[in-house]
Structures are given as structure tokens and as C-alpha cells.
């Protein structure tokens, strides 16, 4: 069986992380912003799995399961706030919610 070198996995994780970070900066719709945070979290998770496989330890995958769980919790609270955002501002554009200045 051909094993994948761990550098390749890390590079993939790095690319995914950058895609997430870029779309976090560019996107204005709150749903896509939450999605890009999710991509970034999962990129970090992938890096953990790759590193765990490289060291032959289960820790990487354990960490990934924790990341999945916490990301789910984060998104559920996030969506509740999104509902409130839509109720108050009648839009999903985050630029609308920028009234506090100073």
C-alpha cells in the first residue's frame, strides 16, 4: 500500500486553512462566514489527524473528534444569534451590523 507522506497532508491542510481565512475576509454573508470558520477548524483538524498518523499516536484523531464536537456547539449557538440578527436587521449582511463606532 502506498502511504501518503505527511508533508502532503500538511500542505493540503495549509491550503484549506488559507481558503477558509480568505473567504472569511471576503464574504459578507453571515452564513458563508460561519462556513469559512468551519473550513478553517476542519483544516486544523486535518492537520491533527495527519500529525497523529505521522507519530502513530491516537491523539491526533481524538483531538479531531473534540474539534468536531466543539464546532457543532459553536455553530448551533452561532445560528441562534444569526436568527436574532435577521430579526433585528432584516438582512444577513454582517456589514449592516456595524453601528457601534468610536
Amino acid at each position, binding site marked *: 500500500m502506498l502511504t501518503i507522506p505527511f508533508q502532503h497532508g500538511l500542505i493540503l491542510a495549509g491550503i484549506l486553512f488559507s481558503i477558509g481565512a480568505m473567504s472569511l475576509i471576503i464574504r459578507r454573508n453571515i452564513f458563508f462566514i460561519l462556513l469559512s470558520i468551519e473550513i478553517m477548524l476542519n483544516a486544523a483538524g486535518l492537520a491533527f489527524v495527519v500529525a497523529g498518523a505521522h507519530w502513530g499516536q491516537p491523539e491526533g484523531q481524538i483531538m479531531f473528534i473534540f474539534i468536531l464536537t466543539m464546532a457543532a456547539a*459553536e455553530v448551533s449557538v452561532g445560528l441562534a444569534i444569526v436568527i436574532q440578527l435577521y430579526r433585528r436587521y432584516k438582512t444577513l449582511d454582517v456589514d449592516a451590523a*456595524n453601528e457601534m463606532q468610536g
Partner: protein
Amino acid sequence: MDLPDFLKILPLVVLAGTTVVLMLVIAFWRNYKVTFFITLIGLIVAFITLPFGVSNKSLQITSILVINGSTVFYLGLLIAGCLIAVLLSYEYIEKFEGNREEYYILLLLATLGSSILVASDHFVSFFLGLEILSVSLYGLIAYPHNLRQRIEAAIKYLILAGATSAILLFGMALIYTVLGTMEFSRIAISGAQPGNQNVMVLAGWGLLTVGIGFKLALVPFQYWTPDVYQGAPAPVTGFIASVSKGGMFALMLRYFSRVDIFANSSLLALFAAIAVASMLYGNIVALMQHNVKRILAYSSIAHLGYLLVAFLASGSLGPQAVAFYLVAYFITTLSAFGVITLISTPEHEIEELKDYESLVWRHPILATIFTISLLSLAGIPPSVGLIGKIFIAAAGVQSSLWVLLGSLIVGSVIGVFYYLRIVITMFRPPEEQVESVISLPSIYTTGGVVLSLLTFLIISLGIYPLPIMQIIARMISTLP
């Protein structure tokens, strides 16, 4: 893990258990007073069980938690801070017409997250504690969700905290890839080997610093602070300023003393730069604000900069100065936000500077309490804030951090201006009869009594700080 180990982490277990009990109680019987009292009892029990963890050596509970003197000290500080926040919130949240009970679950969960951070000795517990803290804070910031600014603050915090925890995780993953371990102590050992100091580890440390800096609101990761402070309800703002930052700072103290930051001069220079920038930026920008909560937000950025000076002081005084300053900062910040909480309602936050005009003629006691806490933040005697600053300065002199000390002094001098501006506004004689939106509570309420107690602590510890110093000297050993 056997029974003695279990006893040592009993405060964490009690905090977690209380949240579960609260959820069950609310599911069957929704009663505001009962929830409040269960929360109080849970916190008091958690505080009473603290001494089980006291021992003179560092005790590892599995590989992810560590309990020693300083852990117990910071746990006590966080639980006491949460207790004060709960007491201050009672009347405020009672006025909210909606589901009020879940507020206490979120407050307890956030304290639990912060406590896990304090006790953590492993990336897993670091991450879990941080996320439990953050996710409960999203809910708390938007809690009485009746104002637009609450939602705005919650969205801003959600996006930024989510992004920074992803950045933090990626940093952890990079460090794990090179070093093959996630325990702080073993990271320290294998990170010190010459072959293991490559670009990936450095990048990992950089990303970790971003995550920590965000939670502590240090320059240049401070952009969320004023908006979240302004948008969040006043008791929650006090909680974020104290408990959330305190937990993170204690973790940073452990992590960086394990990996020995002082051996790496570039990392040391980076932290010194962050400290100077935080002290100057926070104090200078606070001068231009017209909103009391925003002023306190910028002042908190500066105060975390002062704390970093003590953190960077390598001598024996450093950790003790951090501990004392955190105690002083907790008391003073909670007292300042307590006053704002007492005169605000969930429908209307009293936060503009002009709302405070001639407050002393309308409510002399609260105005005096607010004045004392502001003077303590500014470091004017006789207050606990001054003793904290002297302690930090002593630690800095011991390690000859002259640039940092210079910025500390400059920052403190600038700070006096904007603190005194609020005080002068409050003491201005009333010109005409203005329609006041401020609710003027009696001092004989839960919040009023707690505030009087905090004010008493500010003054008495400012005059006679020895009891706290003795506790700190006993608990905070050189062990991280």
C-alpha cells in the same frame, strides 16, 4: 484516576455538576429565585472544596490537568469573581422580560471553561476550556437579546473568536507535528532540543500567541474589545473583563514558564513590544471616547499590558506581582461594572458619559463607589490598584525592564486623565433639571451590598495589603 485525585478537581466537578442540576431544575420548574440560589450554593461549595487541592507539589491529574498552589489560587479567584458577577447580576437580569434563568447556566459554564484553562497542562484541555468559555460567552453577550447592539456585539465576538480558535488549533497542530506531544511539560523538553527549533514550531508559537492575545485583548488583537464591551450587558462585560481574561492569563503564565520563554530572546522581544503597544494604545485611545463602557474597554487593554510587564519579569517577584495585580484588577473592574449594572436596565444601558453628569447629586453613594473604583484603576492612593502597580514596578526593576517600566509610567499618567474625566463629570453641579433615565436603586439590594463590600476591599487592601500578599506568597511558588 482514584479518589484523592478526584477530590483535588472537585471544584471543577462541582461547577459542572451545578450546571447540570440547574438545567434539570429549569426543565421542571422555572423559578428565578431558585435558580439564583442554586447557582450561589454551587459556587460556594466549589469554593469550599478548593483546599483539597492544596499541596506543596505539583500534582498531575491524568495528563491533561495539573493542580498545584497557583492553580488553586487562580481557581479561587475565578470562582470568587463569578460569585460577585452572579450577585451583581441578580437585580439586572430580574428586570428582563424573557427567559432569565438560563443566564446563570451560561455564567457557570463560562467559569468552568475558564477554570479548566487555569488547570490545563495539555493542548486538549487548553482547547476544550477555551471553547467552553467562548461558546458560553457568545450566549452571554447576546443574553437579554432585546437590543440591536447586543446582537452586533455577539456576531462580532462569534466571528472573531471562531476564527482565532481555528488559528490557535492550527498552531497546536503544527507544534504537535514537529514535537509529537501535546503535553506542556513534554513540549518544553522536546522543544528545547536543537533539532526541533524549525520554522514550523516558530509558526505554531506565533499562531498560539494570536489565540492567546485575542482572548486577552492585547494590541494588535484588540479590535473586538470596545464593541463587545459596549454591546454586552453590563454584568457580562464585567465578567468578560475579569473571569475570562484571568483564566487565560493564568494559562499563559503556565504555558510560557514551562516552555521557558526567557530562553528565546525574539519571543521575549515580541511580548515586550505587545506590552508596550497595549499600554500606550489603550490609554491614548481611551482619551478620545465618550462612552464609559468603551473607556473601560480601552483601559482594560492597558491593564493587560501592565500585567504583561509583570509576566515578563523573570525574577521571583514576577508571578506574585501578576497574582496580586489580577486580584486588584478583579475587585476594581467588577466594582466599576457593578455600578454601571446597578443603574442600568436590560432595556437601557447607562453608558454615555453625559448620562453620568452630576450623578453625585442624585445618588451620592453609588457615585462615590464608582469614583473609588476609577481612582483604583488609575492607581491613586489609598487603593489596591496602586499597590498592584507598585508590585509590578518592583518586579520590573528586579529584572531591569526599563523600556517597559517607562511605558507603564507614561501609560498610567495618561490614564489618570480619562479616569478623572468621568469623576469630574459625576461631580459637576447640576445645571438644569434634566429628564433622567437612570434607575436609582437603593443601596440595600444584593448588588448594593456587594458593591459596598468591594469598595471596602479596595480601600482596606490599599492600606493594608499584607493578608493577600501572605496568601499569594504561600500559594504561588516558583512552580508554574
